[in-house]
Every structure is written in structure tokens, then in C-alpha cells.
């Protein structure tokens, strides 16, 4: 397919709280991806960085920061910021350059050094920033939104705390097998239940941590990949970066209220579902074609929501799908084989790139102890603050 780009290399810096600068993590991931691709840095015609916001003035211009650290060599440079979707937008920018013929090989890098505790907005009095407002006026942290979604699922679909805990049990078992994951210990349901409540009904082990980490990809044209001996490379077939459709009637971070549906009837599908649909349409395939999915499990309950939004099951059937074992290794559609954010934590500009790294390793059959058999098609799903969709479809 002419719209494909090849994934020549994937690399990560192990995630954790390492206490070093984000540049170090990004450069380590970039060097790993270049080595995986068998390319030297000077063969790269373009670098795209997913921006890191914390740790300085708003928006470290990551593309140039990584290029400088790797050694200035005159590459085309791009820096993108889309909150949690930054990595997917970096992939989208790289893909567009390759398909437009502006570059043959593009290095995509995202890395972060996360602060302790809750994510919070930048300082100062900034009432024009919805993210600042929700903290100042309501004290509404990210976990309180996850709590709202979880409690709503319990009321509408009958999900239970045990269902949520089983998502953590599943993901921690996969993370235990992933050398790049921060948490590499299997967690039992009783440990989830024994952890402190953060935002009712969710407990500490239902909610992802903040982490340091880095991830990188080397993308190229399919022709270039073939020229380098990669006859059948993993290919990116779709990148969804859609916005919501007015009126967006699901209360989303960082908003204090939804859009009103008084004037316009809402679309039948939610924003999260539209992210997946756009990716499926662009890729020319559907949920029935998937071998695996990497979804954005900010909380255990949110992973169940993604099952439905990706069309892996019907509305309200996410917990049932989990209970059947369909999303576990060996199931019909394993989800978060990397261990997910439950095992990695959030390193915001890196995580959507890290999801594509996992698809790449799985589709190549290089995922080691967590390898899914016969993996041919994978999707990632993520959502960036302020209305950034994010999904990538990769095929082999």
C-alpha cells in the first residue's frame, strides 16, 4: 500500500524514576533505535521530537534538543506538542514528511523526566487556561476524572472493583516480562484491594504513576527499507490524530463541563471511539483484523472503556471481555502486552511512541517472553489533553 511507511528501528530507555534529565533518556532511546535500524545518525534526514513541557519553560523544543545532543548534522527538524498525544503527532509528522518525499529516513524521539506526585499545571495565575482552572476552582486532579469514569461504569454497566483490579493483575503480569517497564512485579487482586483509595472508587494500584522514560523510532520509506535489506518490515498503515466532534458530551480532562447538546444532537460515537474509527478507516481494516492492542490505561477502568471504543466488544461489555480472558495473552485480542501504563507509568511525550515500539517488537516476533503468537496487525490508542486523538495502526 502506497501510504505505508516502514519502521526500521525501535528503541527505549528503561522507565522509572531515575532522577536525570529528559535529554539523556531521549538520546539513549534514539541511539537504541538507530542501532536497531542499522543506521548511523548522519544518515537520518529529519528528526521529530515530541516536546517535554515540565522541567523548564513551557515547551522544550525537543527536536532540536535531541539533534544537538546527538551532534548537529544538518537534519530537517520538527518539534510537536499535543500533551499525551505528542508521540503520535510526532509519528504523524514523520510519516507525512516521508510520504511527501521530504525525507527518506526520520528519527522520532520522545522523553520526559516526571515530577513527583500529581501532574499539575504550570505556575502563576492563569485563569485563561482550562487546565489551571480545574485545579484552582475544583481541585480536580487527573485521578478524580478517572474516578468519575470508573464510578459511571459501575453504575451504568455493572463493572466491579474486582474487574478493575483484574486489569492491573493482567498488565502487571506482562510488565513483569518487559525489561523496559518500571514495575516488574506481578500484582495480585488482593494487593490492589489493599492499596489506598486515591479517588473513589479507584485505588493507588488502579492508577498509573508518573515516570521518567524515553522511546524512539526510525521510520523510512518502504523503498528505503527494502534497499537496506528489510524485505518485509513492520509498516505504519494509519495514524489518527482527530479532534472531537461538537458537542463532546463526555466530561473530559481538563474540562469543568461538557459541551451542551441543547442545540446539536451528539454523534452516536464518542470522541475516543472516533479516534479508533479514523485509524481503522485509514488502514482499511477493522477490529476483527487485530492481533493485539496497546491502549492508554491511565486507570484500570479506562482500559475497559477502550475495549469498547476500539470495537473489541459491544458497549458495556468491556468487563465481560476481560473476564473471558480475551484481552490476556493467549486470548482473542491481547491488550497491553507491554504491561501498559500500569507497568510503565506516564512519561508524557514518550508513551505514544513506546506503544508503537511494542507493536513493532510484537509484529517482528521479537517480544521475548511476552510474545503474542502470529501477530500481524496491531493498534495503539491514546488521548491527548485538550482534544488530541491518537491511534496508530501497524502491520506486518
Amino acid at each position, binding site marked *: 500500500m502506497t501510504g505505508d511507511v516502514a519502521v526500521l528501528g525501535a528503541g527505549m530507555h528503561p522507565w522509572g524514576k531515575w532522577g536525570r534529565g529528559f535529554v539523556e533518556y531521549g538520546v539513549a532511546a534514539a541511539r537504541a533505535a538507530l542501532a536497531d535500524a542499522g543506521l548511523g545518525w548522519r544518515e537520518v534526514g529529519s528528526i521529530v521530537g515530541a516536546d517535554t513541557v515540565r522541567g523548564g519553560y513551557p515547551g522544550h523544543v525537543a527536536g532540536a534538543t535531541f539533534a544537538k545532543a546527538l551532534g548537529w548534522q544538518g537534519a530537517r527538524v520538527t518539534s510537536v506538542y499535543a500533551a499525551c498525544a505528542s508521540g503520535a503527532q510526532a509519528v504523524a509528522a514523520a510519516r507525512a514528511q516521508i510520504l511527501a518525499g521530504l525525507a527518506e529516513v526520520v528519527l522520532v524521539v520522545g522523553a520526559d523526566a516526571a515530577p513527583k506526585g500529581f501532574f499539575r499545571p504550570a505556575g502563576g495565575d492563569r485563569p485563561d487556561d482550562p487546565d489551571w482552572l480545574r485545579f484552582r476552582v475544583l*481541585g480536580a486532579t487527573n485521578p478524580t476524572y478517572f474516578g468519575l469514569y470508573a464510578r459511571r461504569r459501575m453504575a451504568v454497566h455493572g463493572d466491579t472493583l474486582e474487574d478493575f483490579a483484574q486489569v492491573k493483575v493482567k498488565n502487571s503480569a506482562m510488565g513483569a516480562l518487559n525489561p523496559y517497564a518500571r514495575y516488574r512485579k506481578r500484582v495480585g487482586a488482593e494487593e490492589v484491594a489493599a492499596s489506598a483509595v486515591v479517588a473513589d472508587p479507584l485505588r493507588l494500584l488502579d492508577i498509573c504513576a508518573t515516570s521518567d522514560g524515553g522511546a524512539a523510532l526510525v521510520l523510512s520509506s518502504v523503498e528505503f527499507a527494502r534497499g537496506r535489506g528489510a524485505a518485509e518490515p513492520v509498516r505504519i498503515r494509519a495514524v489518527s490524530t482527530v479532534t472531537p466532534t461538537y458537542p463532546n458530551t463526555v466530561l473530559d480532562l481538563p474540562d469543568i463541563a461538557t459541551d451542551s447538546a441543547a442545540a446539536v444532537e451528539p454523534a452516536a460515537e464518542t470522541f475516543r471511539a472516533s479516534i479508533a474509527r479514523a485509524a481503522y478507516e485509514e488502514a482499511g481494516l477493522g477490529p476483527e483484523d487485530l492481533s493485539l492492542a496497546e491502549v492508554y490505561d491511565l486507570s484500570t477502568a479506562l482500559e475497559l472503556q477502550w475495549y469498547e471504543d476500539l470495537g473489541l466488544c459491544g458497549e458495556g461489555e468491556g468487563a465481560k471481555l476481560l473476564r473471558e480472558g480475551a484481552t490476556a495473552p493467549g486470548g482473542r485480542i491481547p491488550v497491553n502486552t507491554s504491561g501498559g501504563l500500569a507497568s510503565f507509568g506516564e512519561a508524557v511525550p514518550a508513551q505514544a511512541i513506546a506503544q508503537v515500539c511494542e507493536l513493532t517488537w510484537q509484529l517482528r516476533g521479537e517480544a521475548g517472553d511476552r510474545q503474542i503468537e502470529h501477530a500481524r496487525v496491531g493498534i495503539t490508542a491514546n488521548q491527548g489533553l485538550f482534544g488530541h486523538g491518537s491511534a496508530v495502526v501497524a502491520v506486518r
Partner: protein
Amino acid sequence: MVTGWFAGDGDDFTLLGTRCSACAAVFFPREDGCCRNPGCAGGDLAEIPLSRRGRVWSYTDSRYRPPSPYVTDPELPWEPYTLIAVELAAERIVVLGQAVPGVTVADLSVGAEVELVPGVLHEDGETVWTTWRWRPTGVTA
């Protein structure tokens, strides 16, 4: 800080939104620039009071002290507060707010009726910052 988001006292306390004169779209927090309905050519945005009663869409609480810019006294022990997302039927909108002090998640259920009351977000020697709070109907605390 959030000028024009609410008005009135006691039983007359209401949230203030805006409504487009062309398409009748409602906005809260108030939108005073342009109508955000992409199918609307754009009308005048007039201030309207929102419904004072609604139904619980969902709820949660905050068991840990949130970071700045939320204002709390670190000298005092942390008292969790409850957050309620409330569906207003007439406006077909969901509005998030803190519950009145003393209301916990055990007092709530999805679909239960709540009403709007004024509350104090924070006060110091010079200023009292008023905010809105949701209170289950029938509760007078």
C-alpha cells in the same frame, strides 16, 4: 478569578452560562467570543442562568491533597472533598463541582438529584472566594 460564572445568594444563587441567539447552543463556563457550534454562522452570546437542579452523572472524591494552584493549608490535616458531575436536563450539559462539605461518596448515587448552593472555596484575611457547590436535595447541611 472566574468573573461572571455565577450570581445571586441563597435560593437565587445560579451558575451563569451564555446562549447563542442563532442556534441556541449553551456554554458553561461562559463563552463570550464566538459560538463554538461548527454548524452555526454565529449569533450574539447572551448571559443565561443555568438550571439549579440536576442529576448525578458520576461522582468521586480526592483522598490526597491536590497540588497548587488549589489552595489548601498544609498546616491542617487533609480533609477529602467530594466531586460531583451533574447533568442539567434543560441545558443537556454536565457540570463538575465540589459537593458541600460533609457530603461523602457514601451519600451519593448516579441519577440522584442535587441542587446548586453557594460555598466558600478559600478565604484569607482580605478576601473570601465564593464558588458553587452541589448538595443532594433534601439535605440542609
